[in-house]
Structures are given as C-alpha cells and as structure tokens.
C-alpha cells in the first residue's frame, strides 16, 4: 500500500478479512478496496455482504482478523484518533445521545474535534431547517440523517464515509440528503465513500463502483467503464441452435445468461464485439445489444456469481395458454 502522504488512494484495504467466530465464515474475505482521492466511491452489495463490517473496520471500530487498511495514509488501528480527525462518518442510523438538544450535541461534537467551523455548521443547520432546541431523539429520520451529515462535515474532513445513509428515508428526505452530499463534494475536493442500496443514485453519483458479495470484491471499476463495457445481448434461437447453445462453449466474458423460450439473454463484460460473434457463430438469429443500468448489472453479476457462471436452462413455456 502507498504510504506517501499525497497517495493516489484516499482509502485502501489489502487482504482485509474479518471472521467473527474462529472457524466461522469470513464476513469480509480478503478485500482489496481502493478509493481514488477526490472521487465518489459507490460501495454496493446485498444486505449482509459485508459493507458495514468493512466500513467499521475502516473507522477503527472493529479489529480485522487479518489484512490491513489505510485511511488517508494513516492506519486506523495503529492511530485511531489521528485517522478519525480526517474523516467524517455518517452511520446508518443516528446513534448520538437522544436526550441532548441539537445545540448541545453540536457543542459536544465541537469539543471532541480539534478543528471545528461553528459558523459553517450554523449555516448548514439553518439551510436544513433544523431547530437547535429540538431533542435529538425527537427528530424525524430525514432530519436526523441531515444532522448526522452536518456533524460529520463540521470539522471539514477530507474523507466522508456514509454507511447506507438514505436507507429508510422518504423520497424528499432522500433528495435533500443527497443534495447536501453533492454540495459538499462541489465545495472542496472531498473523497466520498458511500454504501447504498439505491443503485440509481449510485449510478448518478459515483465515479467508481465497488461491488462486494459474500465478503469478496466481485468488481471494482470506474462507473463509466463499467456501464460502457457491460452489455446485455439478446438473441433469438431456433430449436436447432437452442440445443447447441445449451452445450456449446460460453462466451469468455460471460457474466450471466439464461434462456427463456427461444430467447437467449446474456450479460457480457468487455469485448462485446467478440461475444456477439460467438453468439452469431452458435447459430443465433436477430441479435440485439443493449446498454444496462447499474441496477441491471448488479443483479446479473450477483446472480452470475451464485450460479458459478453457469447457464441456467429455464425453458419457460413458450405459450402460456
């Protein structure tokens, strides 16, 4: 891992592993995560894939079983206090003292941080229409989320880590929250690492995507490259080619494929042209290539991984009459 202060990656992990029981399954398994400095990193995965565990290890809240990580070129396990000074952390639900008033909580956080911009925080609270006299426990989910973000930005950190921040927020609250996040990125060159289930948002906001599944990093790529390089191929087969397609060699860049009636749908990544040729060679007619959304890609990657890159022969009834 790079150890120079102006490293290429703001956040890095190397072989990060976490096992909760000595011989149990690894919740995070040899993760190599790299967040380029100044980028917005979308950390996506199913529930229980290991996103929160990874983030907690990055924050120094959980000790890894093996492997290491760096936060702004500081090891959060050797120097937790120093590492946290440069990071703003927004957990998935607000855990601050419910009995404190907002103003008191802000004062508390200000006292804990060596650097704090009270004026900026006050402005952000005003813009977000948060009542400083309100008790933290009585805030709505959306307001609490915005407050968490404001508190995380109070010490103007270089890195912002958000753990499923829009989970459970209503659409308006979600919009407002994301506006604040983007705003903070525009204000200064911040590195943002955001884990989220909202793939539509991640597609729009992230520069780099990291897909974690069962503790392993299945893919890590720039959003643009991923979206441009992953295509869905739909081919219509006749009954003859159907049987050959079933047993023939798979296109090498295959992510996921299935057969439905006479339609063969496959998702390929990289070398799309070659894959189209291979499909054509297998005797398919009327080949169509489509772009995919991040949501589509995510589902197919996860399903493809589960199926071990094997084709599922689901010959659905051609006519359901």
């Amino acid at each position, binding site marked *: 891992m790079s150890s120079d202060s102006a490293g290429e990656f703001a956040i890095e992990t190397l072989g990060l592993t976490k096992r909760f029981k000595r011989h149990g399954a690894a919740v995070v398994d040899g993760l190599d995560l790299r967040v380029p400095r100044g980028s917005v990193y979308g950390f996506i995965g199913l529930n229980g894939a290991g996103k929160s565990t990874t983030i907690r290890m990055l924050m120094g809240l959980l000790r890894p079983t093996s492997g290491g990580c760096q936060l702004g070129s500081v090891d959060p396990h050797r120097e937790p206090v120093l590492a*946290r000074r440069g990071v703003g952390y927004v957990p998935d639900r607000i*855990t601050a003292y419910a009995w404190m008033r907002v103003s008191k909580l802000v004062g508390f956080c200000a*006292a*804990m941080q060596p650097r704090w911009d009270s004026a900026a925080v006050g402005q952000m609270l005003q813009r977000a229409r948060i009542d400083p006299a309100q008790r933290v426990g009585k805030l709505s989910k959306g307001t609490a989320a915005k407050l968490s973000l404001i508190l995380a930005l109070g010490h103007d950190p270089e890195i912002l880590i958000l753990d499923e921040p829009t989970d459970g927020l209503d659409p308006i609250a979600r919009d407002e929250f994301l506006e604040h996040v983007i705003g903070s990125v525009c204000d200064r060159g911040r590195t943002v690492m955001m884990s989220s289930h909202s793939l539509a948002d991640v597609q729009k906001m992230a520069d780099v995507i990291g897909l974690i599944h069962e503790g392993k990093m299945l893919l890590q790529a720039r959003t643009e490259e991923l979206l441009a390089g992953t295509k869905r191929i739909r081919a219509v087969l006749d009954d003859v080619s159907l049987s050959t397609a079933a047993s023939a060699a798979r296109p090498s860049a295959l992510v996921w494929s299935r057969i439905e009636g006479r339609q063969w749908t496959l998702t390929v990544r990289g070398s799309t042209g070659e894959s189209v040729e291979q499909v054509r060679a297998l005797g398919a007619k009327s080949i169509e290539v489509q772009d995919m959304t991040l949501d589509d890609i995510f589902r197919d990657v996860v399903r493809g991984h589960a199926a071990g890159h094997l084709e599922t022969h689901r010959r659905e009834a051609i006519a359901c009459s």
Partner: protein
Amino acid sequence: MFMMLIRKDFHLQLPVLIASGLLFIAPTIIYLIIDAAISTPTTEQEPLILALSAMTMIGVLIASLTIPAFVGVAAARERRERSAEFLEAMPVRRLTIVTSRAVVALVCSLMPAIVGTFAMATLMWVESGISKGSESGTLFPNDAGQLFLVGFATVLAAAGVAWFVGSLIRSEVLAAALGIGVPIAVAMATSIAMSRMSDEVIYRLGIYRDGPEAYAFAQLAIAIPCLIAGTIIALRRTSP
C-alpha cells in the same frame, strides 16, 4: 474536551443520583433531628434510639446499594443505548472516555459513601453511649477501623462486580444487581467457611474466627480482579 465528557457522564447518572438522594433523605433527616434533640438518652428512650438507628442503618445500606448502580450505568448504559458507537467514532482516545465514566461514577458514589460513613460513625457513638449504661455488650467491636475496612472492601467488591459485568453485558440493571448480590453471597460464603474451619486452620491463616479480616480479604479477592478485568475490557472492546 474532558469536561464535556464529564458533563455528559453526569447527565447519564442523573436517575441514579436522584434515587440515591431520595433514599437518604428520610432516614438521615429523622436521625439527625433525633440526635440533635436528645443528647444523652435515658433508659426509656433507649428502644426508640435503637429503632431509629436501625432505620438509619437500613437507609444507609439501601443508599449504598446505589453505588453498584452508578458503576453499572457508567459501564453499560451507553452501550445499551448505542451512544457508545457514536462516541467511539470520535477522534477521542478510549482511555479518556473510560476515565471520564469512572471518575463520574466515583464522585457520585462518594455521596452515599460519605453520608453512610457519617451515619455509621454517629450510630456507633450513640450506641457506645447507651452501652456504657448497660452490661449486655456492644453491638460493634471496639476497633472501628477494622469495621470500616470491611465496609470499604465490600463496597469495592460491589463496584468491581458491577464494573466487570457492565463491561460484558449491555444492562446496567443486571450489573447493579450482581454488584449487590455477589458481595452478599461472598460474605455469607465466608461466614459459612469460617464456621466450618477448624481452629488450627484459622490459627495458621492468622485471622480471628469472629474478626473482620476474613471478610475483608474475601471481598478484596473479588474486587481487585473484577476492577482490572472490567477496565481492560472497557478499553479494548468495541461495540458490535
């Protein structure tokens, strides 16, 4: 920064502080009034004095039970309410966080400890005044120092058990309950052990059969490991 943590920890102890205060008020005030009104008790007033002394003792004892409650809150409350996670994500050393909790628990415990000691001392003074007139022997041994040693060791054991349990389990109530129960159990166990041991063993151990040393040692044997273990766990463990 440390003062901010101290203020936060005092706020967390408020419910127990209030309970502790209330438990003290009734018996202590009554006792002090009686004490002021009657300087040398007559033989008719003896039973009244003794009854009131008993009440005060009970009040003091109950109030002392809040000491493990203070410690339990310090160890477990924030982890139960999940605010420990919030604090742990801050750029503050664990040692600072744990020290603040321990200091506040200690200061809060001083109130019942001091008032309890004062009440006990006054009680002993009253009792010695009564017993000068009677020949039935004294309630308390002459050596007040040893009595206080046992009392202190017991309180330390109570605090230690509450601290240790509170660092493992997210329940200040359970921590306090065990902090009350375990020292009592230890005292009873010591009593049974003493009555069963032969004179020879007792002589070799260098203690008196009816003396307070055995009790003090037994309580300290619980207190010290619990305090150490609890502190280590509090410093190293992170919330799930």
